């Protein structure tokens, strides 16, 4: 085993707590959301199989969705608050420029993106910024659907009630795409999973495989 000098703290405790609560809440929101969606599909051709839905029937799906909603939103707001306060956003996600994204993406596709433990490359940065924006949009469009009268101003931003349903669905789909990519990359580089649990990584952890790493 390595000594302490070889270890580096990557994920602070609050990030890890946020991450895992968010992971559970997100899956519950998506599965109960599919239950609700099936009652009146936005796109006729798209329906979700029953075994992927939560709640048993529309009423159960709604109960789950609006119970877990509070966990999802509270957790997200605490994360925002602490991340801005501690400068986590500023230091971990920025700067990120279009050139650096293209550059890193090019390297990643050629399998030549070097990985520095504890530092996000541009592709990671833009993925995380992107999924955080998606979570905000899914929340706002959800509020517009849930409270189409009280939050009608938010609804107007999405082109009204039906527009908000489409935005809610599209954001959910993109979040699902992120989750799939995220899990695939963790499966390819499993050593990235440990720091999200313990907070610590070995500096030499990925030294032997300087592979693509956008997990």
């Amino acid at each position, binding site marked *: 085993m390595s000594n302490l000098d070889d270890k580096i703290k990557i994920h602070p405790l609050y990030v890890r707590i946020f991450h895992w609560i968010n992971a559970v809440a997100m899956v*519950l929101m998506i599965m109960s959301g599919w239950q*609700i969606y099936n009652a*009146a599909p936005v796109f006729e051709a798209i329906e979700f199989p*029953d*075994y992927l839905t939560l*709640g048993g029937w529309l009423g159960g799906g709604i*109960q789950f969705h609006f119970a877990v909603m509070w966990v999802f939103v509270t957790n997200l707001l605490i994360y925002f608050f602490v991340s801005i306060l501690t400068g986590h956003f500023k230091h971990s996600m920025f700067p990120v420029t279009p050139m650096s994204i293209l550059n890193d993406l090019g390297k990643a596709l050629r399998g030549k993106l070097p990985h520095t433990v504890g530092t996000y490359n541009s592709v990671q940065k833009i993925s995380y910024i992107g999924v955080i924006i998606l979570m905000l949009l899914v929340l706002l469009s959800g509020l517009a659907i849930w409270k*189409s009268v*009280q939050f009608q101003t938010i609804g107007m931003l999405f082109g009204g*009630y039906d527009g908000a349903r489409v935005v809610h669905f599209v954001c959910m789909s993109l979040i699902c795409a992120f989750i799939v990519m995220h899990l695939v990359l963790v499966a390819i580089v499993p050593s990235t999973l440990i720091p999200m649990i313990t907070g610590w990584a070995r500096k030499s952890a990925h030294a032997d495989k300087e592979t693509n790493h956008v997990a």
Partner: protein
Amino acid sequence: MLLKRKSAPLMLERTHSILNIERRSFMKQTLSLGALALLTGCDSPEDNSAVDRILKAMSNWNDKAQAALFDPTKLAITYEQKDVVDPFRFNAFYGEDEIVTVAEADYKLALSGMIDNKTSWTLEQLRQLPQQSQITRHICVEGWSLIGKWGGPSFGDFLRKVGADTTAKYVGFKCADEYFTSLDMATALHPQTTMALTFNDKTILPRNGFPFKIRVPTKLGFKNPKHVMEIFVTNDYPGGYWENQGYNWFSGA
């Protein structure tokens, strides 16, 4: 999806058994997600009812949160005549072949509970009251929505006219098709809440709720009772047909 009367009790039972089955298949499919370990603890019937209790408690909490969010002066968005869908979709907990027909000659609207003047009302008397109309979006709990034009007396004015105790918590409705539901007093008094005698300027059809429907544009569709036979004011929670099966009671828009 058509919400049919016969399948409703079945759906309730399904809630429990399917939750169980789902949780198991859910586990199998997501074993790779360590994060979901939290869910897997709930597999016995006891835990299931614990989950149900938590969900019920959260639904009650959501009633309070929505009551706090409800602005009694905020109006639902109104639309143009060209947006009105006519004929309007039939929707109930039974099929279209079971629509109830109420005869106008025999019809009397009954009033009960915390109301000073409990004299019943004929349709003609209701038509003599000042009428208002609105073109608003009817949003079903299922997610679909349609725009319609409803007209009739303001429900808030009616409640005040008959001397309803507007400090009471609930207004309940009993319908000719055995449907029942209830509103919070603040929503009952909302300026757009209307006793809809007409749809699109014509006498409302039996399929849409003749003799009248309580049109509440600040609520989901199932909080808009059709074929209203009796209105009562109370402080005792009256529940509702769908609410008693698990739909959130407040269900405000």
